[in-house]
């Protein structure tokens, strides 16, 4: 599709977005290749080398058990990134259709769905996730489920709001006047036009998921202890903040880099998905052929 190519070109012309994308891709590659790159086994305890500052042997130092922080960050990324991605997918597939249908159909269905999301939104998000994980057992799949269930209502509400305003647009009425079916109108007319805020919201969901996974791990509900995760390592590092500040450095830098590049990518996507914001170098449309009758009128 040429539209896709145009959008991609527009995305890459945005420097921050391109940098974010490259950074994100690098992160993904590095994290996937952790078994090859990591100099040490991330869960190998070596009490003889505990709490060592960064050096040639341990680039980012070692933690209280003598485990290599750099290796742990590489492996931890596998968990954190996949949790973030899974939560985004989960929240998207659940929240977007619910919000879209609720806003489009309106009436009683809308009322019912919105009261349900309200019920979800009354709980503090982390508390709700803790309750769900506590109920289902600490398991990575349940963590994704819990974080997804926490984020989906937020997304659904936002999509519903955007749908309500898009539904009243003249082009939606025009599409109906041309015989478009409700499904077609929902996806081709409305969803296409509200993708920008959705994408932005999804980048926020991703960042929130990475951080929330860290919090759950801190509470002992995320990754089980020896397994590395950015969030868990970060919370471990807090206990040694004054003695071994390097423990803190590498997971937090990884989280920051990841969230920042995701946000840049999100901004870039938002602009690339909206043709109106394109800086197009198209030639102006020449005026239409003059109509003969006009000159008659003037004569």
């Amino acid at each position, binding site marked *: 599709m040429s539209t896709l190519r145009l959008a991609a070109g527009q995305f890459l012309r945005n420097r921050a977005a391109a940098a974010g994308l490259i950074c994100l891709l690098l992160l993904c590659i590095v994290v996937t290749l952790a078994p090859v790159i990591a100099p040490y086994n991330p869960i190998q305890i070596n009490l003889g080398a505990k709490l060592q500052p960064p050096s040639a042997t341990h680039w980012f130092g070692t933690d209280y058990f003598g485990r290599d922080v750099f290796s742990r960050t590489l492996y931890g990324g596998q968990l954190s990134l996949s949790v973030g991605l899974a939560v985004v997918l989960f929240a998207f597939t659940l929240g977007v259709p619910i919000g879209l249908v609720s806003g489009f159909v309106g009436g009683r269905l809308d009322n019912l769905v919105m009261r349900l999301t309200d019920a979800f939104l009354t709980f503090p998000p982390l508390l709700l996730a803790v309750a769900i994980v506590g109920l289902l057992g600490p398991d990575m799949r349940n963590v994704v489920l819990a974080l997804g269930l926490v984020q989906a209502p937020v997304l659904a509400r936002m999509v519903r709001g955007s749908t309500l305003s898009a539904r009243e647009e003249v*082009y939606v009425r*025009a599409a109906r*006047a041309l015989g478009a079916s409700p499904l077609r109108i929902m996806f*081709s007319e409305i969803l296409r036009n509200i993708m920008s805020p959705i994408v932005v919201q999804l980048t926020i969901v991703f960042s929130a998921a990475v951080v929330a996974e860290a919090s759950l791990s801190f509470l002992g509900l995320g990754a089980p202890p020896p397994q590395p995760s950015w969030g868990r390592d970060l919370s471990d590092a807090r206990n040694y903040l004054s003695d071994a500040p390097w423990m803190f450095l590498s997971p937090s830098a990884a989280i920051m880099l990841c969230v920042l590049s995701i946000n840049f990518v999100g901004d870039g996507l938002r602009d690339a998905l909206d043709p109106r914001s394109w800086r197009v170098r198209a030639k102006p449309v020449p005026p239409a052929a003059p109509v003969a009758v006009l000159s008659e009128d003037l004569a």
Partner: protein
Amino acid sequence: MSLLRVRDLQVSFASDRGLVRAVQGISFDLEQGEILGVVGESGSGKSVASLAIMRMLPQPPARIVASELSLAGEDLLGMSEARARELRGAQMAMVFQDPMRSLNPVLTIGRQLVEVLQRHLGLNRRQALSRAVELLEMVGIPQASRRLSAYPHQFSGGMRQRVMIAIALSCRPKLLIADEATTALDVTIQAQIVELVKRLAHELDIAVIWISHDLGVVAGMCDRVNVIYAGRIVETAKVDDLFHRPSHGYTLGLLGSTPRVDETEQDRLTPIEGLPPDLIDPPTLCPFLPRCKVAVAECRQSMPPTRAFGPLHQASCFAELA
């Protein structure tokens, strides 16, 4: 057999204050290829009636009743929603007031044209694309094949309205409803669009309902005019008859409040004083009575009957104006 037959069409909406009677029994016929003007002020029911014909009013809140509403012999009121969708775009199409917002901003012009062609005519992509180019050329868009990949925001208002007309006419509908299609455009562009629709209606033999509150435009393009006031057709006539022998107090008022180029002595325009009646509790007398300058004694006793003033010329008025 007329193309469009409307008999005693009534549309009402449920509201907190009661039933709003937006259209109170209008009847008219439209022949194939005929251009019918519909004039009246805001809120008179012009748009509601046309949306009812297009089957585009959600029920509820709207309530639509008619003793007949048919397009080419097919009952529009009783048909299924699926059948109505098939007809919309294929047999009847509509162009709206605001061309700046009538096209989907995130899809290319070509995509929007092709989508309709594929949906109703079952063309494949290649056929649809070449037909799309023809359609854009037909409405006077230069370099049509290159413009297919353009987005709506790259077009001016007049160009967008041409695209809307191309899309509306893409499947050769029998009926085109233009709801204030030139109101948002400046005068020269307006004249171009009017000429375009007039030409295409004749070339393609399409019946047009041209809704407007611009009497000048109506005079220039329509064969016949319905004057609507407070949800009723108060006068219907051929264009010449309407302008030369207006037979309803409201039509007279409309003409008096419209500037005319062909009048040498420049009188001041006379506005119609007052407001249209409440549609929740419509008056039992002539709805225009409180604002009428030519009311006679009978007006205060009963609702004026519809009287014939000539061939195809009817008005609901007691006053003798001709």
